[in-house]
């Protein structure tokens, strides 16, 4: 049970750091800007759904993943490089205790950050718009927390598998670049190879499934389904690697259930998106633990 001591100690250190408070501040500020921005859209029926939609691009694709990577990437590699890992070992903590403890602390940190961000959006919406639809709030909260933990898991896995600050940084940045820049073109390439053309607005469900195996896409598809609205990615891949026209995209054309015919398969549902995000938390940490337990740590 010694991981608990590591987790508590690490969490105390994280709370004492200025970084995590700055991150919290940035999120709350962003929410305030998004809410005020949404409220100035005069003549429309605005509410939390608009806030979520605005947030999902900048927050969901940039801020949440990057802060999660920042919070996670030094967790193990930092202790290893500075030599404090030797102190931890000397205090009777084993490799598993250290990794599980650190992971618990850092994931908790990001859960708190994501929750504060979502709750501040809800509170601000209630104040500014006078309403706060509970279903949208809960879906937004669950997906955002899951997204934050997914990228924390990736960063922790990278941190455990590499021995140095530089390696962990490279792995964290690399994973973000992979999901933002490479993932969608690769999946589009698979579609092209199979079907001989780029995916249109009516896409096969396996294509949308492959897409949502990326945590960023899982989050985006999940939110689109929740809101019943289009959410445009930060990099606009839907305009580049998919054959969709503006007209067809109106009125939530990109929402998953509007792109596949018939009943939505279970693997394209919202809860499955959350499951995918949780897999991105667990699997990288488990792989990182395997490396870490076998590694020479000097």
């Amino acid at each position: 049970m010694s991981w608990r001591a590591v987790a508590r100690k690490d969490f105390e250190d994280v709370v004492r750091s200025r970084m995590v408070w700055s991150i919290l501040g940035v999120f709350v500020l962003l929410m305030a800007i998004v809410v005020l921005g949404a409220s100035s859209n005069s003549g429309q029926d605005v509410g939390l759904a608009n806030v979520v939609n605005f947030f999902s691009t900048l927050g969901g694709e940039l801020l949440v993943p990057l802060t999660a990577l920042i919070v996670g990437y030094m967790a193990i590699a930092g202790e290893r490089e500075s030599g404090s890992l030797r102190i931890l070992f000397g205090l009777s903590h084993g490799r598993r205790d250290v990794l599980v403890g650190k992971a618990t602390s850092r994931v908790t940190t990001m859960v708190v950050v994501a929750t504060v961000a979502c709750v501040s959006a809800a509170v601000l919406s209630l104040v500014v718009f006078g309403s706060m639809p509970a279903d949208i709030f809960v879906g937004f909260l669950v997906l955002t927390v899951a997204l934050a933990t997914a990228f924390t898991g990736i960063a922790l896995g990278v941190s455990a598998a590499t021995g140095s600050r530089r390696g962990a940084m490279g792995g964290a940045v690399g994973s973000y670049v992979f999901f933002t820049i490479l993932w969608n073109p690769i999946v589009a390439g698979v579609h092209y190879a199979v079907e001989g053309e780029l995916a249109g607005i009516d896409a096969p469900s396996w294509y949308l499934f492959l897409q949502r195996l990326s945590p960023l896409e899982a989050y985006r598809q999940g939110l689109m389904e929740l809101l019943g609205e289009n959410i445009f990615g930060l990099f606009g891949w839907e305009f580049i690697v998919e054959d969709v026209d503006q007209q067809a995209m109106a009125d939530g054309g990109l929402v998953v259930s509007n792109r596949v015919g018939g009943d939505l398969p279970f693997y394209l549902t919202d809860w499955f998106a959350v499951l995918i995000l949780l897999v991105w938390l667990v699997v990288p940490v488990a792989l990182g633990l395997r490396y870490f337990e076998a590694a020479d740590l000097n």
Partner: protein
Amino acid sequence: MAAIETNGLTKRYGDVVALQDLDLTVEAGEVFGFLGPNGAGKTTTIDLLLDFIRPTEGSATVLGHDSTDGADEIRDRVGVLPDGFDLWDRSSGYKHLEFALESTGGSADPDALLDRVGLDQADAERRVGEYSKGMLQRLAMAMALAGDPDLLVLDEPSSGLDPHGIRTMQDIVREEADGGTTVFFSSHILGQVAAVCDRVGILDDGELVTVDTIAGLREAAGVGSRLVVRVDGQPSADLTAIDGVTEVTAEDGTLTVAYSDAAAKGTVVHRLVEDGVSVLDFHTEEATLEDLFAAFTETSTPANGDGATETAAGEAADHPDTAAATEGSR
């Protein structure tokens, strides 16, 4: 039961041999000095004992547990002061001690631990980020002691410490040893090892050169001690006749008496006084430990052969200021 036992313990990184075929036994309750120049493989050995790295060949047993399979059991009973570590800058010294006590299930009073290592309570309230190297070393020592370990592993424990701090550290080692704790003391400074250790192992270039007591090492290396006496007049007595005196040289009113038995010193001075020679001043020169060290680490290369011991003794004579000189005799 041996506290530490290694059998053919070897660590290689590719073609680089960090530790070669180490066979070492450290008995329970002893203070064992692990000596070697920087890069000799001392930290590699410690890392292997604590499962920080895994052996390429061979095995090690620590407190009866295999270093790899029994790593968790070992860690529960070992206190470690590593070489080259950072602590958590934002936490106070007290927080560090609390964490150490919580982690090891230790019941010691934090203030008592601070007192042992010579840290002020006021300092313990401060963030560790503001500590000097010596203070960090003291705090880490307190943390190593927190769990009342059966085996204390100290890797270059004096780094960053002033002479007073070194004395405190040596006192702690003696106290722990008196309490039955085995101490594994790694250092590149022979004098510090000699001050506290029962036995010493010398490691050079990844290989164990010798294991012996300090006195045994001195004898084996053929490096003796000398009494240097400034006299007015020429003694008539034959000092070499005194038991334990091995050689006498006289030059410019200074007698240098080499001896193998420390008791001979008093007899020499006594005999000179009896002879009516005025003894103006005297001091002893212990064979410098650095020379002793050099004698062993250099003979390990076959090319040097036996010459190394002579070189070592010669250097001691050439540089008397580096010798461990003590005014008067015991």
